[in-house]
């Protein structure tokens, strides 16, 4: 056993006079050498904390109270100096940009070795080997800020592996990355696991790629840990990939983990889909014509044209850097297009960002960084104050907005004390509290767990049913299939397809869902009868 937890409990430092909240509660588990393990479970359930216990950041960096015993390769990480632990356990954090120390890829990989005093020829050998193992030789002399998300994540992995640890920990390594980047990261991890016999532990919410390849699943929820095989996980986890969900509903045994495994069951007993009717399309709310945006020499958006009608929810898909964010910025008036027009309900869009977003609200990525009031109510109040100049603004309006976003129980909480998922919801609510008819959401489900994604899908469907419309930029095809009525694909700044959801998510479409590949006409497990 390379990692052993015995009766481990841990609480982050609490304010004086407050009772400690146990982030980990009586964990007793062992992980065998050479395991490829997945930590699954809801947000704030203790996944990140458990990873940090393994390399000693908890409690050495974070403080707090810890009881019980941890053993990692014969060492107690809560007492061993970080310099020692770093040689045995490597950790890749959620945001690759937050962990970069150096300027170029090569120096970033060498940083840990320089700290350990590794001799120069050995350093060169390891850097060469890592660059080729991770398939990033061409990035060697690149500056870190110029890399894409997937590339940065692989550089971060290389930087950690340079110390040749036996255990690699990753905290949501694919949550910030587009599908191609996520595939590359996971393929890299698998290869390293096989070639180097590395023990890998990954905490992640997007399970469809990982569940078929891992050998152990640790379900972490409210500080409790349960160990199971991937098959058991497919039966027992609260949020599972769509194909497992379908298997559960149909009672397939053993539960399939991939679409290929599920084909056998479908072949034996073909399934039919119940077609879902979206709300009827209403009047034209937003019209974009020939929109082109350039940043210096680079063309970020090229002749984008489409209309958006009431009742539509569009999923905007495309790789990192394909122009999704730029399109939103141009519609909201944050960048001025080189040419092309934006019209709201048939009239030219107003000039100022404030006036534009009164009609077409935009929620950018990481909206929670702008929160600054003491209470959630204060945040909502401020938005309504700005939006309803001149009109009578009452407590009822604030309570209405809080209720609409399911924030009433949190109204007097400080946004900074909330969990990441709740913070995200507060931030979305502050941007859209004035109920604009059109919503633009930039990657709203990034790093969100199953219930949070489902909640957002409900909210979007209700908005469309009430005569609104929305565009959601996302990498998460499976959750987009729950709410989208139409899919627009961007590639290198150009609209490459604009299809109704029934065609786009279908097996032959550009973004097929797992269920659609099994049952013609269905998109998500709920569609199958």
């Amino acid at each position: 056993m390379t990692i052993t937890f015995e009766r481990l409990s841990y609480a982050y430092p609490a304010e004086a006079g407050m009772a400690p909240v146990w982030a980990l509660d009586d964990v007793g588990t062992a992980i065998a050498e050479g395991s490829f393990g997945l930590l699954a479970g809801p947000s704030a359930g203790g996944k990140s904390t458990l990873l940090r216990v393994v390399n000693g950041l908890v409690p050495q960096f974070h403080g707090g109270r810890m009881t019980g015993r941890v053993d990692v390769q014969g060492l107690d990480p809560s007492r061993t100096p970080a310099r020692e632990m770093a040689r045995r356990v490597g950790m890749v954090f959620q945001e690759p940009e937050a962990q970069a120390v150096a300027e170029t890829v090569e120096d970033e990989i060498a940083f840990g070795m320089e700290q350990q005093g590794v001799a120069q020829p050995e350093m060169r050998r390891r850097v060469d080997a890592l660059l080729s193992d991770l398939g990033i030789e061409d990035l060697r002399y690149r500056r870190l800020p110029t890399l894409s998300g997937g590339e940065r994540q692989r550089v971060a992995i290389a930087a950690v592996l340079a110390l040749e640890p036996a255990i690699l920990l990753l905290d949501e390594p694919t949550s910030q990355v587009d599908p191609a980047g996520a595939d590359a990261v996971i393929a890299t991890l698998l290869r390293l696991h096989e070639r180097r016999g590395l023990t890998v532990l990954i905490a992640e919410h997007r399970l469809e790629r990982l569940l078929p390849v891992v050998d152990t699943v640790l379900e972490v929820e409210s500080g409790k840990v349960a160990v199971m095989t991937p098959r058991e996980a497919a039966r027992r986890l609260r949020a599972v990939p769509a194909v497992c969900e379908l298997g559960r509903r149909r009672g397939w045994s053993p539960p399939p983990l991939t679409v290929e495994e599920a084909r056998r069951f479908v072949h034996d007993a073909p399934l039919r889909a119940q077609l879902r009717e979206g709300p009827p399309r209403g009047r034209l709310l937003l019209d974009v014509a020939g929109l082109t945006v350039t940043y210096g020499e680079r063309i970020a958006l090229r002749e984008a044209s489409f209309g958006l009608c009431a009742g539509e929810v569009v999923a905007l898909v495309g790789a990192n850097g394909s122009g999704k964010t730029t399109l939103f910025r141009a519609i909201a008036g944050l960048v001025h297009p080189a040419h092309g027009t934006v019209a709201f309900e048939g009239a030219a869009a107003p000039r100022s960002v404030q006036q534009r977003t009164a009609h077409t609200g935009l929620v950018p990525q990481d909206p929670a960084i702008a929160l600054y009031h003491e209470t959630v109510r204060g945040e909502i109040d401020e938005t309504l104050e700005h939006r309803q100049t001149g009109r009578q603004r009452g407590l009822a309006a604030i309570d209405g907005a809080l209720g609409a976003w399911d924030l009433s129980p949190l109204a007097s909480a400080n946004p900074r004390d909330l969990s990441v998922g709740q913070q995200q919801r507060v931030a979305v609510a502050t941007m859209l509290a004035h109920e604009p008819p059109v919503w633009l959401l930039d990657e709203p489900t990034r790093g969100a767990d199953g219930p949070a994604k489902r909640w957002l899908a409900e909210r979007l469907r209700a908005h469309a049913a009430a005569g609104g419309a929305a565009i959601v930029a996302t990498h998460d095809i499976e959750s987009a299939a729950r709410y989208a009525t139409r899919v627009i694909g961007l590639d290198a700044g150009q609209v490459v397809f604009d299809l109704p959801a029934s065609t786009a998510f279908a097996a032959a479409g550009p973004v097929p869902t797992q269920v659609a590949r099994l049952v013609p006409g269905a998109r998500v497990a709920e569609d199958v009868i």
Partner: protein
Amino acid sequence: MHTLAWMAWVALVMAVALTTTNPYYLGVVLLCILLVAVLAPRTGSAVAGFRALLILGSGLFVVSLGIAVINGNYGGHILFTIPGPSVPDWLGGLRLGGPVSAEGLVAEAIRGLAILCVLLAFGVFNGAVSPHRVLRTTPAALFHAGLVVTVGLTLLPASVEDVRRIREMRALRGAPGGWRSLPALVVPAVIGGLERSMRLAEAMEARGYGSSPAGARLPRMLGAASAPLLLLAAAVWSYYPQARPIAIAATALGVLALAYWGWSAARSRRTTRLNSEPMARTDVTMSGISVALAVAAIVTNAAGWVNLSYSPFGGLPWPPFSLAGGTLALSCAWPALRLASQPAASREATAPAALQAMDPAHEVIQP
């Protein structure tokens, strides 16, 4: 050009600009800096652009002249008089208003010019050399402190980017701009910056940084003892001229203690470097000459061999000009020769990547 060569040049500019008070020489130094600035590569992650620094420096120059006017001053050529209250003597001769003399203004302008020169020299250095390259040439004893500063410097542009994003988000919420929204900008930016620093510190800790053994006790004690020794030496030297040998001995002891601390720190911190920047022979030569010239400027001026100073008081005389002084000032232009002799392609090689990285709208860098 090598980082150390750039440092030597900054040292030379500082030495010349701060020893001379002759407007001719200062003017020559300023022109030299501007020439170097035009030719210097812009590959560093300059926190402030050179242009912004130029505007700031000129602004400071004007402000210092303004303050000189308000303070009033002495001198024979009174230009005009500003009415002001008479301040009691016991406030240490502070003056508000009163006669404004040409001499006073000229003296203030000369002081402002010297400060402008130093500011711009740092601006060129900052633009030409990234903090990461500076870090690579830091002695091992100062490596930890240097790394912290470097990381801090690279976090600063990130905070500027944060403020930009938060401003946009405020506009998206319908908030009007203006000064009243300052707390709404600053609070999240500060909190965001702190959180970012914590995450980075955590990541560095996980990679084995920061927990190296603190080093033996003796060298650390000696390192600490060097400061009072050097202070003592300075005090004795200035107040007790008859005891100067003691001051020299104290200086020597202090320097020795410091050197021992540095040496043992370098030995105990067994860090290595993947890319040690090789120093070209020209750079070595020119750095040596720069340092020698810097020392020469200070020594000759102190000894009075070459008169670098000029005082406008005493009848506003025309400043003197000597060939030696002029040559010394002109030597501040040496990086221009060095840079002009390199092919333009190699000077600008990394510029497009750097520009791309700084483009705030570049989607790749938006997290």
